[in-house]
């Protein structure tokens, strides 16, 4: 097995008494697509800033490409592409110039970076916007430009912090398609997200993070197998009755979870559970049978939903 490109061991970041990242350990193999899944405030962005060799850890050990970020920050960053949570493009510069200026930070000669910028604009589907002002781009276009910029140095690892947060569904799908191509080309991707569908689409393997700690680790399918049932029956009885009905049907399926707006019945066969409920005389306002998702895994592990 090739040496991991990232090794975090009991990685910790404390701000005074508060541990934003509380001793997390994981490894990422070259070419792997690895996700940190967790709600806002789980410590994902702080972890990303440490992996990006910007923020210094306060405990544990971290190796990126075999190097210690405390010693070799510039060396590590020369091999990374970083897509932060909030776009930080230079609005004073035109679209193409954003790529060229950024390439210069990696010491890429002007002529080379100009050619590279054109390729990346093509990749990001922004070739016709080369001369546009950044401000005039849509949210999805800005995001793609930020990703193009992160690729200007042909990075060995691409760090993406919530790459599609705030984008509309169509823009998200375009972006996922671009990231999927990078993955196919063998770029190591490390991304954070609080969208389970994103994690399922893009990640070979992921860790579920909550309150700075890792709750579970595995591929999306493994996590679902280990922490949830095959199917989920969602039934709604109205916000005033959900809790009451949940008590009455407590024994149904493998497990019953009650949320403010609905009841979740975990089972290998959702349709059968629904029939069972109807026979018992429980008539839900709406019902839905679906496959288990990482959202359910998260709920099981933390007792909370991902997006609150």
């Amino acid at each position, binding site marked *: 097995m090739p*040496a991991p490109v990232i090794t975090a061991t009991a990685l910790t970041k404390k*701000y005074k008494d508060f541990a934003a990242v509380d001793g997390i350990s994981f490894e990422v193999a070259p070419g792997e697509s690895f996700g940190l899944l967790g709600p806002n405030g789980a410590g994902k962005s702080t972890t990303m800033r440490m992996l*990006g060799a*910007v*923020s*210094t850890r306060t405990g544990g050990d971290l190796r990126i*490409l*075999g*190097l210690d970020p405390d010693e*070799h*920050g*510039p*060396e*590590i*960053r*020369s*091999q*990374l592409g*970083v897509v*932060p949570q*909030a776009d*930080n*493009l*230079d*609005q*004073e*510069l035109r679209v193409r*110039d954003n790529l060229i*200026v*950024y390439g*210069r*930070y*990696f*010491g890429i000669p002007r002529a080379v970076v100009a050619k590279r910028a054109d390729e990346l604009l093509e990749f990001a589907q922004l070739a016709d916007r080369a001369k546009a002002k950044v401000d005039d781009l849509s949210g999805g276009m800005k995001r793609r430009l930020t990703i193009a*910029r992160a690729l200007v*140095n042909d990075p060995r690892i691409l760090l993406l912090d919530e790459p599609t947060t705030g984008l509309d569904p169509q823009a998200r799908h375009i972006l996922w398609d671009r990231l999927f191509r990078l993955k196919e080309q063998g770029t190591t991707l490390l991304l954070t997200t609080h969208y389970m569908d994103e994690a399922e689409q893009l990640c070979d393997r992921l860790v579920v993070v909550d309150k700075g700690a890792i709750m579970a680790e595995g591929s999306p399918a493994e996590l679902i197998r280990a922490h949830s049932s095959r199917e989920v029956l969602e039934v709604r009885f109205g916000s005033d009755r959900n809790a009451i009905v949940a008590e009455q049907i407590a024994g149904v399926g493998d497990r019953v979870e009650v949320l403010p707006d609905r009841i979740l019945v975990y089972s290998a066969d959702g349709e059968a559970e629904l029939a069972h409920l109807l026979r018992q005389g429980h008539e839900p306002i709406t019902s839905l049978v679906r496959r288990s998702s990482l959202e359910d895994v998260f709920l099981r592990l933390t007792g909370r939903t991902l997006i609150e």
Partner: protein
Amino acid sequence: MSEQTVSSNRSAMAGGARARRLGSWYVAEHRLLDMRAYAQTIVATSIGNPLVYLFALGVGLASLVDANLGDGGGGQVSYLVFVAPALLAAAAVTVATEEFTYPILAAFKWNPIFSAMRSAPVSSAQIANGTIIAVALRIVATCAIYFAVMVAFGAVPSPLGVFGILTASATGVAVGVVIMAYTSTVEEDKGQMAIIMRFIITPMFLFSGTFFPLSQLPVYLQWIGWISPLWHGTELGRVLAYGLAEPIWLTVAHVAYIVIMLLGGWRAAQVIITRRLDK
């Protein structure tokens, strides 16, 4: 570390070494490109300002002063020659104030390019350096144009006066780095920049021996001049431009004051920016 990792990290080592050596220049290059967005304003003000000020003060006001005093109040030269080095230093301070207030806030917040730079191989201290270098270049260019206009007005009797470009620029940068250190601590704009301009920069212009010798002020106001970098820069400019008579220790003190402020402010800006970006 395995042999394989070592060899595959050769490009990392080269990339890191390059950034350690040249990072500040990469940042300066970026900032100079940013200035292109308002290049027209820069050019117009660089040429327009000296013309306006030298006509208004060096010609217009000077006719009154010279008619009443027969000299610049200091007893040596015409009012035009007296006021020109002060206007040069003031122009440098104006550009520094302009570049180290809102553009710094913007680079942290509204157009957060500092965080983008920080993801590249450069360090936070290099981000500070590059920003200062770029502004310093703009200040030197502004002062050079200003000086050329001064010469055209016949305001510079001594050939040594040309070094006034450097002393004025250094004065501007010294004031600028201190402002930059402060603005780098500002998380939210609550009008602090306007306060700097109104309550620090403007009084500094008025009480730094700019338009009249500091000795004309009551003694209890003269301290404003002594602590003002603009006064030190102005007096240096006068020593160079027309050989203002002052004790040599005072000239040394002018240089020392500006150098200490420049180095101290520069270091403070590095430390504060590092603390903010690396947290």
